[in-house]
Structures are given as C-alpha cells and as structure tokens.
C-alpha cells in the first residue's frame, strides 16, 4: 500500500520549556488502521496537533500524499483531506444532528445564497449516513442522543468535509463495550470505503483488535513501529512502559503498624454519571505508602475525590480509624488530620491571585490561635507562612506575593507545605510532582517519605510509574475502575509487570487473557 502520510523527525518544544516531541517518526499507509499508542504525556496529542496545524513544529517535515506540507490551521488541514474526531466532542447541544454535521458549510439557496437549503442538507446527511452505516437520527437534537451516537455525529462531520485521513483521539474513552463494537464496525466500513485511520489510544486490547500497524511513543520519542499480527500485548506494553531513568530516593524499609484507612467496596460515579469506581477495596496502615498506579482516567480522580469529601460515593465504606468518612464533606475531613495534595494545583490546590500566606492558612483562618479578638492575626499568619516557606524551601520574594507568580515546583511546595503542616495521620497525594522540576520532585518525595517514617499512612496516586515505584511500599493498580492487582514493591518488581496490569493485559488471580 502506498504511503499516505510521513512525519519525519518531528520536534516540538513549547515556550515554557516542555519538550513534547523529540524527533518522532510516523509513517501511515493508505487504507490502513494505524494505532498510535503511548502513556499520558508520551506526546501523542502534541504530534497530532502539529499534524493538524494547531501547533507549529520546532523542526521536522510532514509529507502528505508525497508532497511536503505545513498546514497553518485546522481549516487548511481539513481542506487537504484530513479530519479529526476529538476526544472531547465539539458539538452544539441545541442544534440537530444534521445541523451539527453541516455547521459552517451549510448548503445554501435563494437570492445571494442567504437561506439554508434544508432539503439538500437532509439529503446530503442521509446519504452520508447510508453510505457509511453510521446510524443516527438527523432530526434529533444533539443534547438528547447518547454518547455513542454523538461520536458518530463527529465522524460524520469529518466525512462531510471530505476527509480521507481520519484521526481519532481516544475514541473509546467514553463508550460502552457495545458502543465500542459498533464503532469498530464503522471504522472497518470506512476503511473499505477508501479512508485511512489513525487511532490514538492506550487500550491495548483494542489495539490488537482493530489496528493493522502500531507506532509506540514514549517520553516524546517514537520507540518503534510494529505489525499488529506479528506482536503481542506484552510486547507493546513493554515498549510503552519501559523506563530509562529511574528516580530512586533513599528509603528505609517500612514498619507499618495499625490500619489507618480501610476502604471497602467503594463505588462512585464520574461527572457524566457512569460508574468510574467499581467495588474498590484496600487498606493502608500507619507508616506505609500505598501507591495507586494506572493510566489516567481509570478512576483515580473519583477515588481521591470520594476519599476527601469532594464527591459522594454510590456505595461502600471508608473507615478512617474506625470512623466512616463516606458522606462527610471536605470541611470535616480536613479537620481530621487528613492531608490532600490535589492533582490540579492551579484550580483546586491553590488560589493563584491570593498571596502565599492566604494560601497557607486555608485550614487555620478560623482557629482561635490565629485570631486576636474577632479579627485575624495577620502577624501570626505571616510568621506561620514564613516558617513553612523556610521549612519547605519555597523560593519567592516574600510571603505576600500572589501564588500565581511562583514556578510550578514552588507552588506545589506551597501546597505540600500546607497539607504536611497539619501532621496528617493520613496523607493523600494525587499527582504530587506533575509539572514540577527535578529539584522540587526530590524534595517533595523526601517530605512524603518523612511523613511515612513519622507514622502517617500515605496514599500516592500517580500516572508516573517511576514515582509510584520510588515512593510506595505496596502498589495497587487501578484499571477500568477496579483494583486489578496489589503488589509488594520488592526490588524484583519490574515496570513491565506493573505496566501489564495497568494496561489490562494481566489481572491478579487470573490467567493473562491473550
């Protein structure tokens, strides 16, 4: 099959210094289904943004249909026959399916083409639906149809504009198994009709089922391209997860004592209403670190939110030193010496327009020791902040500057300082070093381990496998909302092994499904 797309040596460095793509090569043949796999942060979305003209590459070339191209925006790419089905749908809820499909390119009629040609619109849309077997009701308002059909509308949008190369970004992330089957059916029909598909995903089972060839990305590089029929999930997983640099911090062996947290059969729904956490059970003892490994989007966010009172559980118990936390609000939970380093420091973890002091006193502004009569004792608060900033090595001009002026690492240290200053009995750290520089990572890791050595029970949730392995005494793996493995973090444990649980290849207590 002739080559349709060639991306050669693509480099992309963002203005803030992040290197997203380090010399990636991607070759896609006409008429194939090409899977692009990699963990979060491997560089898949950036690569596609570069292809689509949403970002300009720092260097590298793109050859489409044999000719060198550089698209200067989505409209340009669309005109050349590319189409993107986004992970987060771009649909107008109150408009109908057919209106959404033709949006921006409506068939027109009448004097000066001022009016919509609704009969032609319907005709065109119905023809598309019939040709590709993507069944939707063109008259239905988009807000009323289920997710699987919304995706079909997105695909039809792309086909309506004449796309030959269709990029699908994590299309099955929001689908039920049955909807996924229907999607695959449609994809095969599209290929039979002469289209080419790039399928971005990290779900290996699907990769094996639908793709012809696979390109694996890892840490901004392309690791290799495989023929699906000649490879296995284990091999792909090994390529995806294998690490070159390991972050190891000095760690004394754990001496766990009494059980601090016991989670029993916890289930919770996500923001869209589907079950994200399914009957999860685990326990953490004082003086140990339990790491939760898993690709993002497998229920970690919902788990942390349920534990910290920011989300209501559907069922199950959260026993903290004997008390059931399920149903309590964040205020109560924070008062029980439970620390929470949230995964998004810029929205939940801090207030960027407030000063560092105001960020640090979140748990103390009501307590008597920081008050003088009815008023806040600013002197005491400043002293408190200064002391914390020193202890946690927060580098800033003063405690009064807005938190938003701090670098990522320093801001995270503020968050860590606030949570750890409570001397928590239970510390929940979610993506504690995401977007943080190496120096700060080391510091934060050391502080977390200090808490553990002081007898706290620590839960570390991270999509960075190396971080989980560096900090944890035991590792539980979340896949699809379930705990599929609980492993002791011995020196013999490899990333590949954990990776195979993370990617659904293996399941503890079961034979690997091939």
């Amino acid at each position: 099959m002739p080559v349709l797309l060639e991306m050669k040596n693509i480099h992309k460095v963002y203005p803030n210094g992040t290197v997203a793509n380090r010399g990636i090569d991607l070759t896609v043949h006409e008429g194939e289904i090409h899977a692009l796999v990699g963990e979060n942060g491997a560089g898949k979305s950036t690569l596609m943004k570069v292809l689509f003209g949403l970002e300009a590459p720092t260097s590298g070339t793109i050859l489409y249909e044999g000719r060198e191209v550089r698209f200067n925006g989505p409209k340009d790419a669309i005109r050349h026959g590319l189409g993107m089905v986004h992970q987060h749908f771009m649909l107008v809820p109150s408009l109908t399916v057919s209106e959404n499909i033709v949006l921006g390119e409506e068939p027109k009629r009448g004097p000066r083409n001022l009016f919509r040609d609704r009969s032609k619109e319907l005709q065109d849309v119905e023809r598309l639906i019939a040709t590709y077997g993507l069944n939707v009701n063109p008259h239905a308002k988009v807000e009323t149809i289920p997710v699987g059909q919304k995706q079909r509308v997105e695909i039809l949008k792309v086909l309506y504009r004449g796309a030959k190369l269709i990029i699908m970004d994590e299309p099955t992330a929001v689908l039920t198994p049955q909807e996924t089957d229907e999607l695959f059916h449609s994809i095969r029909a599209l290929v039979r009709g002469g289209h080419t598909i790039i399928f971005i995903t990290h779900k290996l089972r699907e990769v094996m089922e639908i793709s012809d060839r696979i390109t694996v990305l890892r840490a901004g590089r392309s690791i290799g391209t495989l023929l699906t029929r000649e490879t296995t999930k284990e091999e792909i997983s090994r390529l995806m997860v294998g690490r070159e640099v390991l972050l190891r911090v000095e760690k004394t062996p754990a001496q766990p004592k009494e059980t601090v947290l016991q989670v029993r059969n916890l289930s919770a729904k996500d923001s869209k209403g589907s079950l994200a956490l399914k009957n999860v059970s685990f326990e953490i003892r004082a003086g140990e670190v339990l790491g939760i490994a898993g690709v993002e989007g497998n229920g970690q966010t919902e788990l942390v939110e349920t534990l910290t009172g920011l989300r209501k559980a559907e069922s199950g118990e959260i026993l903290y030193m004997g008390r059931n936390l399920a149903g309590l609000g964040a205020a109560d939970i924070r008062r029980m010496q439970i620390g929470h380093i949230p995964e998004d420091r810029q929205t939940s973890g801090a207030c960027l327009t407030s000063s560092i002091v105001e960020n640090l006193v979140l748990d103390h502004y009501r307590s008597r020791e920081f008050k003088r009569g009815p008023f806040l004792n600013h002197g005491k608060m400043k002293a408190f902040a200064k002391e914390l900033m020193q202890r946690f090595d927060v580098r800033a001009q003063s405690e009064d500057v807005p938190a938003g002026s701090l670098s990522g690492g320093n801001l995270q240290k503020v968050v860590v300082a606030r949570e750890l200053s409570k001397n928590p009995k239970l510390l929940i750290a979610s993506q504690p070093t995401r977007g943080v520089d190496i120096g700060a990572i080391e510091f934060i890791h050391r502080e977390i381990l200090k808490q553990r050595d002081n007898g706290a029970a620590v839960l570390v949730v991270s999509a960075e496998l190396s971080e989980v392995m560096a900090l944890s005494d035991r590792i539980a793996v979340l896949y699809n909302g379930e705990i599929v493995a609980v492993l002791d973090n011995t020196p013999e444990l490899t990333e590949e092994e954990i990776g195979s649980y993370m990617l659904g290849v293996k399941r503890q207590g079961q034979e690997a499904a091939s």
Partner: protein
Amino acid sequence: MNASRSLTLELGGILVTVAAALLCGSVVIMLTSSEPLVAIRAMFVDPLTSAFNIGTILNKAVPLILTGLALAVVFQTGVFSMGAEGQLYVGAFVGALVGVYGASLPPLLHFPLILLAAMAGAALYGAIPGILKAYLNADEVVTTLMLNFVAILTTSYLVNNPFKAEGVGGFARMEYIDKDVLLPKIIPGTNAHAGIFISLAAILVVYLLLYKTSIGYEIRLVGKNPQFAKYGGINTRKVVVLSVMISAALAGCAGIVETLGIQQTFKDNFSTGLGFDGIIIALLGRNHPAGVLAAALFYAYIQVGAQTMQFNSDMPREVAVIIQVLLVLFVTAQAIFAYLHQRMARRKAVM
C-alpha cells in the same frame, strides 16, 4: 514582580485613565462651549474653592461611598448583583417607617433602631437573589434588575396609599421624621450633614470585614477561586448569600442615610440612580474600600463641578456623564491590560 511595584503600577494605570477621561471631557467642553475656559474653570476649580461646595461634595459622596462599598463587597465574591438601587429603596422605606412610627422612643434608641431596621430590611430583600443564585444558579443580573423594579414600584404604591402623609399632592411622601433623629448639619455655612461619619465608619467596617475577618477571607476566596474554596471545605453557597446580604445592607444604609440626611422622610422615587452609580464607584475603586472612598469623592467632585459649570456657563451638567462613561470604559479596559501584563511577566519569570 513584587507586590509594591505592581501596586504602584496599578495606581499609576488608574491615574493615567482618570487623566485621560478628564482630558477627553475637557476636549468636549472646548469644542462645544462658547466660553470654554470659563466652563472648565467652573467644572474643575470652583467645586474646591468654596466651603459650601465642599460641603455639597461631601453630601453627594455619602451615599456613593455606601453603594460603592455595597458593590465592592459583592463584586469581590464574583457576583454581578445590580440590585443596589432596589435595596436602597427597601432600606430607606423600612428605616423611614421606624423613623415615623417609632417617634415615641428616646432618640438615642430610636436612631440606631432606624439604621438597623433599614439594613436588616434591605439584607432580607437581598437574600432573595442571593439564594436564587447560590442554590438555583439563577442569573443574578436579571433577578436583581427585576427586583429593583419590584422594590421601587412596591414602595411607591405604599407611600402613595397606606403610608401617605396628609394633604400632600404631587410626589407622595411619608410624614416627616422627627428632627431629633435626622442627621444634623456639621459644617456651618454648608449643608454637609453627619452622614459622612456613617459613611467613613462604613469604610472602616467593610475594610476590617473583608481583610481582617474569617468571613472576609471566605468572601474574597470564593470570588477568586471557588474550586479552591470548595476543596478547603468552605460552603460556597452560604458565602454567596451572605455576601449579597451584606451588600444589600450597605445599600439599605445608603438609602436611610439619604433619607435622614437630605430627604427627611421617605419620598416616592427619591433616588437618582445612586444604586447604579455604586457600580461605577466600585469599578473605579477596584473593589477596595480605600479605592471606593477615593472614587466616591472624585465622582462627587465631578458631579458638583458639572453643576457649577451649568450654573456659571453655557454647558449642561451632563458633560459629567461623558467623563463617567469614559472612566468606566477606560478603567475596565486598563484592568485587563494590567492583568495580561502581569501574566506575561509571570511567564517570563517561570522560564
């Protein structure tokens, strides 16, 4: 960029916009007046040259400070309540009721009771849009605008019918409130009344409330980052309602202070848009009590200047409106520039 440098930059920016607006206003005067220099002198110099004029400036500033504070509080919580005008009427009416019908009380008890009643009545009225916003997410701009009309029409009906004073034609009013509880004049040779003390006290109280109490901490935090507030366990809904109620109480105070200081009783349709002026004051003062004080005095100065200009030259006082509009537009546009500038400086520092 450190805190004091960015503050100086902000102050500098505001001064520049104020100067720009004044300059444009002067240009308009020069273009349309047959004696522009007279007009400009009357507008900018005269208000400050006589004690009487300064007294008038203070009087005009009194309700502006209070409505400015009202809007400052609610804007700091991120709520766009435009209901100060209606809350002002409710406060004035309830306060006047207590004023007229509680005349048998000793003045030392009567006066604070009037103020309290006015503020409480207005606060309750403000709770309506507050609860609708916090618990039903009903758009506060429309609810408060509607409730303005409801308050103005209802009090108008009440003062025209059951509570109308005897033998009054034309614009209806209640019976006059006893002199003992009216605000006395404080500067001889002027009309300046004691309401200025109440307004200044309010500035102090609001400053302490916003920056030195735990409630103030919550009010400001919810406005700056509601998600962070929720993460910290703050009940954002209660804070929103409380903030709107405090704002309404301040607006109600503005109403009763105007009543006790100038009107001497509740009069039908007495407000000339004081509630809406408060929006401008809060914007100019950047929602800070000190800024509100400065903005209210400046605004009052412009208003008095426009009046003296009309009196002494061929320019109508509506020139002040042109300056006010320019101020509003320039200040809010400038705010965005300052914010963007800060953002860019921050990003450079990170790299």
